[in-house]
């Protein structure tokens, strides 16, 4: 354990990252999504905010040359809504997870490093928060505080830090006992100095992997809230598209394009982050992944067996 290198150098990291097909696939998926979100006004054929004249034909219109992915219950272009929808998911995912990571990371490091009563109080509180089901709590708070984008980000962020706190605490505990930290303490280095110079750099890789997974959870939570009817009405989001479609007859109109498209977007983003996170974990924390029952047909690989053998 102790003689294993603790941190990968940038070059070594990039070398094994490039080889990891899972991480690379995730990164490419995310890059495409980010591109769509940033350049939405350029890519999208229509402006979702512009009003449309509603006729019988414009509602739930099948995909056509004018509307590549058809139209929704309000006659709006599904493809354009789809492209703009990535903005909400990415915004909420990134900002909410940032809040969660800062809270969880701070609590975890402080609890693990200081120990004693501080640790007990923090971890007891974390345990309680861990047991309370996230989504119902989020729904209740957002329902009461009104679903503005800022509220949604704050609530998701303020609730989703528990797993981070536990992971970071465990990591801090193990780092705290390492020789160089003990040495720094024995020569009288201050707590802040030790935390910043010795502990934080070693917690960072874990935080990065964890934040990627927290982002994907935040995106799923946001889309679920929107689907349940708790979306910011001033912006288009994928969950909201599904909510409108589901509540306003897309099922009976068999308008599959309104039902499939937004969900595809959510899966794309969440899968991108999940793949990236899984790959990063493999790169930063490689496991041998063999065990005592692994098939080993080549154990005896003798080119020319001695003549003694019948």
């Amino acid at each position, binding site marked *: 354990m102790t003689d294993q290198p603790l941190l990968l150098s940038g070059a070594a990291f990039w070398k094994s990252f490039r080889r990891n097909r899972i991480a690379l696939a995730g990164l490419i998926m995310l890059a495409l999504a980010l591109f769509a979100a940033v350049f939405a006004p350029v890519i999208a054929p229509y402006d979702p905010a512009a009003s449309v004249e509603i006729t019988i034909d414009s509602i739930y219109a099948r995909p056509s040359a004018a509307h590549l992915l058809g139209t929704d219950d309000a006659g709006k272009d599904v493809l354009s809504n789809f492209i703009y929808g990535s903005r909400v998911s990415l915004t909420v995912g990134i900002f909410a997870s940032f809040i969660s990571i800062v809270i969880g990371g701070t609590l975890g490091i402080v609890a693990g490093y200081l120990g004693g009563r501080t640790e007990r109080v923090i971890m007891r509180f974390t345990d309680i928060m861990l047991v309370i089901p996230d989504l119902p709590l989020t729904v209740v708070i957002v329902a009461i505080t009104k679903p503005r984008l800022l509220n949604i980000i704050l609530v998701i962020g303020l609730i989703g830090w528990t797993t981070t706190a536990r992971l970071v605490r465990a990591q801090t505990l193990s780092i705290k006992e390492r020789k160089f930290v003990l040495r720094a303490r024995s020569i009288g280095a201050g707590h802040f100095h030790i935390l910043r110079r010795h502990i934080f750099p070693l917690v960072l890789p874990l935080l990065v992997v964890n934040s990627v997974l927290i982002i994907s959870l935040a995106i799923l939570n946001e889309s679920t809230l929107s689907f349940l009817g708790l979306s910011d009405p001033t912006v288009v989001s994928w969950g909201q598209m599904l909510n409108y479609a589901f509540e306003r007859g897309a099922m009976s109109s068999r308008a599959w394009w309104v039902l499939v498209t937004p969900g595809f977007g959510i899966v794309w983003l969440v899968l991108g982050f999940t793949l990236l996170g899984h790959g990063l974990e493999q790169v930063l924390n490689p496991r041998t992944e063999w065990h005592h029952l692994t098939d080993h047909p080549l*154990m005896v690989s003798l080119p020319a*067996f001695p003549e003694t053998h019948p």
Partner: protein
Amino acid sequence: MTTPTTSAPLLAVRDLSIDFITPDRPPAHAVSRVSFTLQPGEAMGLVGESGCGKTTLSLALLRLLPPQGRIVNGSVQFNGRELLALAEPEMADIRWRHMAMIFQGAMNALNPVVTVGSQIGEAIHRHYPFMSPPEVAARVAELLDMVGILGARADQYPHQYSGGMRQRAMIAMALACSPEIVIADEPTTALDVMIQAQILDLLDNLRRHLGLAVIFVTHDLGVVAELCDKVLVMYGGVTAEYADVDTIYNSPRHPYTQELLKAFPDLSKPQAALNSIPGYPPRPDALPTGCRFHPRCPLVFDRCRTDQPALLSVSPVWSSQQSSGYAGTANSKRSGEVRPTHLASCHLVENDK
């Protein structure tokens, strides 16, 4: 300690080589052309610092290497039967029934959530499937009794045992199917000195009582002096020296053996400083050229750095017979002497001739 060398060997290992394969890298030679024989009831010490290939060699005898491990050369004959030629199910029948192993660290080698009794019993049931459950239970109680554990404790879990008791239970488990050979891999690490002595006594008594052949894997030459008939000293995956225990202690020829003996506290001279060899054994993926011991050898000279020394017979009785690595005691039949070969791989041995 005389050995009945006239009978056919129980176990004959010849030129066994084991590589470890890692992608993108040349194979690491963990064990290279090691040979030895074991007679029924004989005790052999397999000695060397950690990282010299002792455990790898022991696991290879049971064909239990990890997936990176490859047996790339040699032969392992048990009672004349080639183990390396067996299909896996046949090999599984040999394991524990004929060749059992006492692993180092009984805490981890025992399953924490299965009772000690059923961990012993399942081995019996595996190789004697027609024994009834009461017969198996009786045998488990008998085995525990043999190692000084109350039969009633068979229903307890490993965590309810003390460290010494766990190691005893491990020994009882190894004896479950009355094997001919037991490999004891550092059987006393992590135990305190008193308990160590007890466990070693127990093993020695059981060996004599049951006529077991035992391979003691250890870095402790004291253990070897007390318990073994002969010794195989390994360094960097090769045989450094191979001889009967008196020869090893009284006239070691390999500098590594000599250094190990210096490091071993001599009880007759308690004032003597404990001498440990500076440096570490080479990693199997970065073996030095020439003699694998030359970077640490006090007697190193130029040739050691370039030429790998062959394993040569030391005793003048057999100086005419150039050994190609086969260290059989069958030679002694021809010479009429009841003594095992003394082999060492050092250029100094050759120079002496």
